[in-house]
C-alpha cells in the first residue's frame, strides 16, 4: 500500500519533469545562458590585437555612465516609452470599445484597425518613410495644399523622435486593441443590462465596470508595451538610423551600433545587462504591486 503511493508519486514527479523539460532546454540555451554569458563578458575589457581581454570589473559600466550619448539615448528612450505606452493603450482601448459596440461593418472596422499590426515592420517603416519624405511625402503634399512649408520630419532633431513615436503608436494600438477586444467579449452582457436598470449612464458603466474588469488586460499590455519600447530597432534602421545627431537613437539601436558598428562588445554587453535589470525591476513592480489592486475573474 505504502510503496504503491510512493510509486504513484514518483510517476507524477517524472511526468511533471518531462513536461517541463522542453521549455527548460529552450530557455536555457536561448535565454539563461546568453544572459549569463553577457554578464560575464561585460566584466572584461575589449580584446584587441595589442591588448588581450582582461578582467576590469565595473569599468565598462562606469565608462557608460560617463558617456553623454548614453544619457541622451536613455532620455530618448524614456520619452519614447513615456509617450507611446499611454497613448497607444488609450487609443487601443477607445478603438476596442468602439469596435465592440453594435455598429454596422464591425468586422471591417476591426480588420482595418488590425492591419498595421499585420504589416511587417520594415514594410510599415517604408510606408511611413513615404509619408514623411520632404516635398514628395503625403504629409507635405497635404500641408502644401494649405500653404504650409515643407518639413523634413525625419531629418531634423526636433521632430525625428516624434515621427518615430507616431509610427510606433500607429503600429501598436491595433495590436493592443485585439487584446482589449478579446477581454471585452468576456464581460457578460447582463452586467450592462443590470447597470442600465440601475440608471448608470454609458460613461459610468464604462468607468465603474468595464475599465476595472479590463485591468488584467491593461497590465499585460503595459508590460508588453514596455518591452516593445526597449526592443524597437527595425524602424530606426529604415527611418532615421538614430539620427540626426543621435536625436532619435534608442537603447537597442545604440547597443547594436556599439557591438556591430564599433565592435565594442564589452560595452554593448554592459548596456544590455543594465536594460535587463531595469526591465526586470519594472516588470516586478507591475506584477507585484499593480497585480494586487487588480481584479481577476
Amino acid at each position, binding site marked *: 500500500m505504502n510503496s504503491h503511493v510512493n510509486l504513484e508519486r514518483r510517476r507524477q514527479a517524472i511526468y511533471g519533469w518531462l513536461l517541463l523539460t522542453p521549455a527548460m532546454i529552450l530557455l536555457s540555451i536561448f535565454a539563461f545562458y546568453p544572459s549569463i554569458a553577457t554578464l560575464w563578458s561585460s566584466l572584461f575589457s575589449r580584446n584587441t590585437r595589442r591588448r588581450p581581454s582582461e578582467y576590469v570589473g565595473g569599468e565598462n559600466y562606469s565608462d557608460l555612465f560617463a558617456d553623454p550619448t548614453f544619457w541622451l539615448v536613455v532620455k530618448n528612450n524614456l520619452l519614447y516609452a513615456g509617450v507611446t505606452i499611454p497613448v497607444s493603450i488609450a487609443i487601443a482601448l477607445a478603438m476596442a470599445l468602439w469596435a465592440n459596440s453594435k455598429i454596422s461593418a464591425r468586422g471591417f472596422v476591426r480588420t482595418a484597425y488590425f492591419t498595421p499590426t499585420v504589416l511587417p515592420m520594415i514594410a510599415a517603416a517604408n510606408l511611413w518613410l513615404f509619408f514623411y519624405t520632404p516635398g514628395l511625402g503625403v504629409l507635405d503634399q497635404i500641408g502644401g495644399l494649405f500653404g504650409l512649408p515643407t518639413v523634413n520630419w525625419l531629418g531634423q532633431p526636433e521632430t525625428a523622435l516624434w515621427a518615430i513615436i507616431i509610427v510606433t503608436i500607429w503600429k501598436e494600438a491595433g495590436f493592443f486593441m485585439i487584446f482589449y477586444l478579446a477581454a471585452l467579449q468576456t464581460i*457578460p452582457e*447582463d*452586467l450592462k*443590462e*443590470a*447597470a*442600465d*436598470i*440601475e*440608471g*448608470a*449612464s454609458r460613461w*459610468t458603466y464604462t468607468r*465603474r*465596470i468595464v475599465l*476595472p*474588469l479590463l485591468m488584467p488586460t491593461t497590465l499585460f499590455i503595459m508590460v508588453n508595451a514596455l518591452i516593445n519600447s526597449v526592443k524597437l530597432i527595425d524602424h530606426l534602421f529604415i527611418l532615421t538610423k538614430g539620427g540626426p545627431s543621435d536625436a532619435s537613437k534608442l537603447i537597442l539601436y545604440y547597443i547594436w551600433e556599439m557591438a556591430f558598428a564599433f565592435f565594442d562588445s564589452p560595452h554593448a554587453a554592459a548596456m544590455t545587462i543594465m536594460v535587463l535589470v531595469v526591465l526586470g525591476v519594472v516588470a516586478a513592480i507591475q506584477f507585484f504591486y499593480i497585480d494586487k489592486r487588480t*481584479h481577476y*475573474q
Partner: protein
Amino acid sequence: MSEQPFVVLDNVAKRWNGQLGVEHVSLDIEEGAFVALLGPSGCGKSTTLRLLAGLETADEGRILIDGRDVTTSAASDRNLSMVFQSYALFPHLSVAENVVFGLKVRRVPRAERREKLTRALTITGLIGYEVRKPGELSGGQRQRVALARAIVAGQRLCLMDEPLSNLDAKLRTSVRKDIKKLQQDLGITVIYVTHDQTEAMSMADKIVLMKDGHIQQVGTPSDLYNKPNNTFVAEFIGAPPMALIASEALAGFGPSKRIGLRAENIVLAPEGTGRMTCRVSESEFLGAETLIGLEHEQATGLTIIRPGLSPMTVGQEVGITFDDADLHIFDASGNRLVS
C-alpha cells in the same frame, strides 16, 4: 375613472427579423401582486419580462407602469429593479458596493445610502459579508446579494428572471419561501419568470402560462390546475401531468374529443368493473406514495397515486374508474369545452 392596474401590457408584440418573439400579450397586474410568467423554454416569457424592463423595445402595443406610458422609456426611467438569472453581480465590487451601485449612480447622499444598505443586508441576511467579493460567496449568497440590490432602492416593481435556476433543489425550496415573504413584507409587485411549475404554483397569486409567444391562460394557481383552458395547460400544470384520453375510449362522450383526468381522481376498480382496462408500465416510489404509470392505446399520461410503498407488477392488467365530475373535456383542437 375606475382604478387602473399597476402594470398594463396592451397587445404587445416583439419580433426579431420576422421571427416571432411574443404576440398579442395583454396583461393587467395589480399592485402588490406576485405574478409568475410560466412556460417551457422559448415560449416568450423572458422576452415579455425584458420588454417590461426596457431591455427590449416592443414592436407593437403599449406598456404602462403606474399609469405612465413607458413603452419607449429607457430601462432606468421605469422605476423598477431586476434580478437576473445569472445574478449579474459586478465581480470586482464588494457585496456592499454591488448593492449600493444604483444608489450611488442616482446620487443618493452617503448617510441615506448607508442606512438603506444596512436595511437591505439585514433583510437578506447578508450582514457580515459587506466586504466580500461575489467570487467568494456561495451560489445562495450571491443570489441574496442580487435580491438585496433589487430591493435596496425601494422600487415598487421588481422583475425576476429565473432567479432560482442556478441553485440546488434544497436551497431552491427555502429561497422560494424567502422571496415570497420578502415580497409580502415589502408589499412590492413581483413579476417572476420561471419554467418550473412548482415554483409558479407555490409562490404566485397569478400565473401567466405562455407557449410559442402567446399567452395560454392567466389565472390563479387553482384556476390553472382545476380549469385548464386547453390541453397544453392541462399537461403543463401539475405533477404528474393530467392524463388525456380520446373520447372514443369511453362511452357517452361522442367522437373526436379529448378528456382530461388528474391522477388523484383515478382509482383502481375491482376486477371486471373498471371503465377502462390498462396495463401497468412502471412503478415509481416517491416515499409517501407510489406512482403507477398505466398504458392504454387511446390515452396518454395515465397515472394512479397509491399511498406508501405499493408497487405493482409491470405488465399487469388493471381496471380503473373515476367520477364524471372530475373530467375535463376538450374539443378536437384542444380547447376546453364548458361543461
